[in-house]
């Protein structure tokens, strides 16, 4: 119930961000109606749970996102170098790692973070085993160092609900 | 007759695209391919209309402060509905293709025709 309410609040905020009409009672009313309708449909679809609406992560996320963005910029430069150099020193490699997250949500965040940084892609997930493809050995080493893994686990940790 | 070559380039490309779609429709026996060709034809017709509605120096037909020249909204209205109707009819066509595949086991129109001729000597 609490999650439905907070999803509703987030949705209404999105509506205001999209709409740009703040003095029209009709549109604001329609915004409320739309929010309620969407929350009802989401409830029917059973997508409001700790995975579908992770409010618990909002505080940790503030710290995590900027770090991730910086990582993305760094690895972008690395991949661009590979593409632009005439000999293309790509040493593609498949490897497996174990992730330390407890929930599917944490694993999703970790997998998506790996994929989002160019140079590494999460190809498959089986439980806590990730199969990863890296463009270069350095990229592979970067993932295997486990720094991102620890960060995501820390992000996930305060919300350790039994899944 | 004075011919302005650059004044019509848009229409010419559109006619070329239209004929490409037309060719696919009449030359290819595969029914799904025919529908793909029909879609190309459709999009080129849309483009023809939209090009006609363009006014040099005009802007999107949504009223706002300080904008005087607008492109013609009428083709936009016609095409807007035509796109959605187009996808609905495409869906109907695809449903027919699925049924034809079930009934005849093939979606090549020459094979279907051969089967029909066999059935009615």
């Amino acid at each position, binding site marked *: 119930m609490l999650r439905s309410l907070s999803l509703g609040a987030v949705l209404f905020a999105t509506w205001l*961000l999209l709409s740009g009409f703040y003095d029209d009672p009709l549109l604001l009313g329609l915004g409320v109606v739309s929010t309620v309708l969407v929350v009802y449909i989401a409830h029917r679809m059973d997508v409001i749970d700790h995975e579908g609406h992770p409010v618990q992560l909002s505080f940790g996320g503030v710290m995590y996102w900027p770090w991730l963005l910086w990582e993305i910029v760094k690895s972008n430069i690395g*991949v661009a170098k590979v593409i632009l150099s005439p000999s293309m020193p790509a040493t593609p490699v498949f490897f497996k790692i174990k992730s330390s997250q407890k929930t599917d949500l944490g694993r999703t965040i970790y997998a998506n973070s790996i994929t989002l940084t160019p140079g590494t892609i999460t190809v498959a997930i089986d439980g806590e085993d990730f*199969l990863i493809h890296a463009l270069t050995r350095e990229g592979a080493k970067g993932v295997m160092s486990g720094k991102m893994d620890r960060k995501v686990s820390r992000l996930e940790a305060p919300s350790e609900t039994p899944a | 007759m004075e011919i302005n070559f650059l004044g019509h380039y848009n229409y010419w490309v559109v006619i070329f695209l239209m004929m490409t779609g037309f060719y696919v429709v009449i030359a290819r026996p595969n029914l799904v391919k025919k529908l793909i060709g029909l879609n190309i034809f459709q999009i080129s017709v849309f483009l023809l209309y939209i090009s006609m509605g363009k006014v040099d120096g005009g802007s999107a037909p949504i009223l706002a402060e300080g904008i005087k020249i607008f492109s013609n909204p009428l083709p936009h209205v016609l095409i807007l509905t035509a796109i959605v109707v187009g996808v609905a009819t495409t869906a109907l066509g695809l449903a027919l293709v699925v049924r034809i595949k079930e009934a005849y086991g093939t979606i090549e129109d020459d094979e279907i025709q051969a089967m029909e001729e066999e059935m009615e000597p």
Partner: protein
Amino acid sequence: MTTTLLDVISWAFLLIGGASVIIGTLGILRLPDVYTRMHAASITDTLGAGMIVAGLAIQGGFSLVSAKLFLIFVFLLFTSPVSTHALAKAALTAGVTPAGTDRKSGKGAEAP
């Protein structure tokens, strides 16, 4: 004065963005197989899109336009890894053999 400064910053962003879009697509053309090409595609999705959107947002100023640009960026950031992951998974399942792969750490990382 501040407007010129902002203009210069946004132009720099736009230029970097445009350049990285081209580099990314060049990678899609040059690299040897699907898996490596995906890395190149994600340059376009992250740095290219991010920089162009940031440049445009500076031009748009503090307004609804920037808010929508921000939404577009967030949306791309959410969806692009998901589709890349799904694509890689599908390619692996279909048995597309990766080019020039050496199997490091060799814990049965071969494609099924």
